[in-house]
C-alpha cells in the first residue's frame, strides 16, 4: 500500500512537469485573452497577470494606433459564417453518410473495394482537390459563398463519417433487421425506426465530429472565400495575424471562442473521435 502511494506521488511530480510544459502555450493564450491592452507588449512579458479584464471580449479595450482589430466585435459576421457552414455540413453529412454506411454494412454493396475506396479519400491532400474545384466554382460563379465551402467540406467529412458508421451498424445484430423484415417492415422502415435509433450515439458522435472538422477547417475556406460574406473564423484570425502590430488581446479572445466548442465536443466524444481518427485500427 505504502509503495503504491510513493509511486503515485513520484508519477504525479513527473506528470506535472510534462503537463506544465505541454499546457503552457494554452495557458498563455488564455491569459492573453484576459490581459488589459497595456499588458500585451510589456517587457518582461507578464506570466502571472496582475489584472484581468473582459475588455478583449466586450470590445471596450482601446487598442492603439496601427492595430487592425481592437475588439472581438469584428468577428460576429465570421462567427455567423462558421456556424452556418459547420451546421449545414454536419447535418447533410450525417444523413448522407448514415444511408451509405447502412447499405455497405447490411447489403455489402460494392464489397471490400467500395469500402477501401472510401477510406482512401481521407488520404488525399486537400490542396490538390481544391485547386480544380476553385476553377470549376469560378465558372459556376459560386466562389465566396457558403455553398462553395459546404460542398467541399462535405467531400472530406462524408468518407470519414461513413467509415466509422459502418462499424457502428455492424455492431447491431443482424437478427434485429431480419425480425423486422419478417414482421413486414420495409428496408426504409427498418432503417428509420430500428437501426437509426439504436445507433443514435454513433450518429450523434459523427454529427459532432463533422461539425468540428468543418468549424476548424482552414485551407479550403482560405481558397474558396474572399470576403466577409463567407469567410470563416479561422481565416479571419489567420489573415489578421499577418498585419503589423497585432492587437494580441482581442485575437487571443477570438481564438478562445474558436477553441472552446472544439475542446468541449472533443472531450465529450473522445472515444468515437479516436476510433474515427485511427479508422478503427485501434480500439479505445
Amino acid at each position, binding site marked *: 500500500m505504502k509503495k503504491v502511494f510513493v509511486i503515485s506521488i513520484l508519477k504525479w511530480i513527473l506528470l506535472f512537469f510534462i503537463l506544465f510544459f505541454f499546457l503552457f502555450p494554452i495557458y498563455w493564450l488564455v491569459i492573453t485573452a484576459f490581459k488589459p491592452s497595456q499588458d500585451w507588449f510589456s517587457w518582461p512579458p507578464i506570466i502571472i497577470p496582475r489584472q484581468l479584464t473582459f475588455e478583449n471580449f466586450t470590445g471596450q479595450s482601446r487598442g492603439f494606433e496601427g492595430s487592425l482589430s481592437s475588439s472581438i466585435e469584428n468577428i460576429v459576421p465570421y462567427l455567423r459564417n462558421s456556424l452556418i457552414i459547420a451546421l449545414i455540413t454536419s447535418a447533410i453529412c450525417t444523413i448522407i453518410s448514415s444511408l451509405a454506411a*447502412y447499405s455497405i454494412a447490411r447489403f455489402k454493396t460494392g464489397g471490400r473495394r467500395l469500402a477501401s475506396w472510401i477510406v482512401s479519400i481521407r488520404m488525399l491532400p486537400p490542396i490538390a482537390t481544391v485547386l480544380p474545384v476553385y476553377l470549376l466554382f469560378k465558372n459556376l460563379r459560386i466562389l465566396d459563398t457558403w455553398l462553395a465551402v459546404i460542398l467541399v467540406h462535405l467531400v472530406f467529412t462524408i468518407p470519414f463519417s461513413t467509415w466509422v458508421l459502418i462499424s457502428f451498424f*455492424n455492431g447491431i445484430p443482424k437478427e434485429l433487421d431480419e425480425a423486422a423484415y419478417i414482421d413486414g417492415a420495409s428496408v426504409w422502415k427498418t432503417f428509420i425506426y430500428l437501426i437509426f435509433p439504436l445507433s443514435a450515439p454513433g450518429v450523434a458522435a459523427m454529427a459532432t465530429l463533422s461539425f468540428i472538422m468543418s468549424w476548424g477547417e482552414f485551407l479550403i475556406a482560405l481558397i474558396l472565400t474572399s470576403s466577409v460574406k463567407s469567410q470563416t473564423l479561422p481565416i479571419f484570425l*489567420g489573415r489578421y495575424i499577418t498585419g503589423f502590430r497585432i492587437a494580441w488581446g482581442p485575437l487571443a479572445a477570438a481564438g478562445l471562442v474558436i477553441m472552446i466548442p472544439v475542446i468541449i465536443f472533443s472531450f465529450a466524444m473522445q472515444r468515437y473521435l479516436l476510433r474515427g481518427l485511427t479508422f478503427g485500427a485501434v480500439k479505445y
Partner: protein
Amino acid sequence: MQNKLDFTDRSGGGISRHLFDNVIFLGPTLIFLFAILIYPLIYSLYVSFHDWKLVSTVPPKLIGFTNYINALKDPLFWNALRIQVTFILIAIPLELIIGLLVALLFQVEFFGNRIMRTLLLIPFFVLPSLSGLMWRFMLQPRYGLIGNIYYLLNMEPVDWLSNPRLTFLAVILQDIWRTWPFMFITLYAALSNFPKELKESAEIDGANKIQVFLKIILPLLTPAIVVACFLRLIDALRIFSEVYVMTEGGPGHATTFLSIYIYKNAFRFFNIGYANSMGYMLTIIALLISFYALSKIYKEELS
C-alpha cells in the same frame, strides 16, 4: 462493438433484392463524391497539361507535359520536397518516442490516472491554425513567451521567425507539441488491451523490465505503432494551415512545404496550371503510400 467489416452476405438475395433501395441509400454519396471529387481530379489533370494563368485574358494553351518537366527542373519544388521529407523524418520519430514513453508511464495504475490522461490530450484538440497562431505569438521576441525565457537567462532575445533554421525548428516543435498526444493515446489504447498475465508471467520467469519491454511489449505493440505512424505520415504530407499562419512559408523558402509552394504558385503567382501539375504529383505520392499501407494494415479488416 466490433470493428471488423464482414463482407459475407447473409441477407439472402443481397444486392439484387435491394437494388432499388441501394440506389437511394448509396446514390447521394456516390453522386456527390463524383461531382465534387472525382470530376475535379480529372479536370485537374486536364488543367495540368495547360499553360493556365489565373488572371489573364489569354486563353489557356495546351503544352503537354511541360508543367511536369518544369516542376522536376524547379529547384524550389525540390526544396519543398526536401523540407517535407526532413520534417517527416524528424517530427514523427520524436512524437512516437514521447508518446510511447508517456503511454508506458500510464501503464501502472495510480491516483488521478484518468484526469491526467484527459488533460494531456488537450493540445491535440487545438485546431492547427490556432496552434500556428499561438506559436507565432509565443515566439515574438519582445513580448512573447520566448522573450521571457531569454529575459530569465539574462540574454538579448532572438527573433526565431526571422532565422531560417530556428523557424524550421519552431514548426517542428509546434507539430510535436500538438500531435504527440495522438501517438500517446493510440499506443495507450493498444497497451491497455494486452492481457496482464503475459507481463506477469514473464516477470515471474525472472525477466527484468527492459527485457519484458523489448521481448514482449514492443513486438505486440508494433502494429499499433505502424498505424499511428502511417496516419501521422499522411497528415504530415499535407501540412498547411499551421505553417501558413505561423510563417507563411518563410523566411525565404525555409518552411515552404509542398502544399504551401503549390498554394503560392496558384494564388500568388497565378500559375494555376503549374500548381495543378504539382498537386497531382503530391496526390499520387499520397495515394501510393496509402494504398500500400492500407493493404498491409487493414488486411484483415478488408478481407
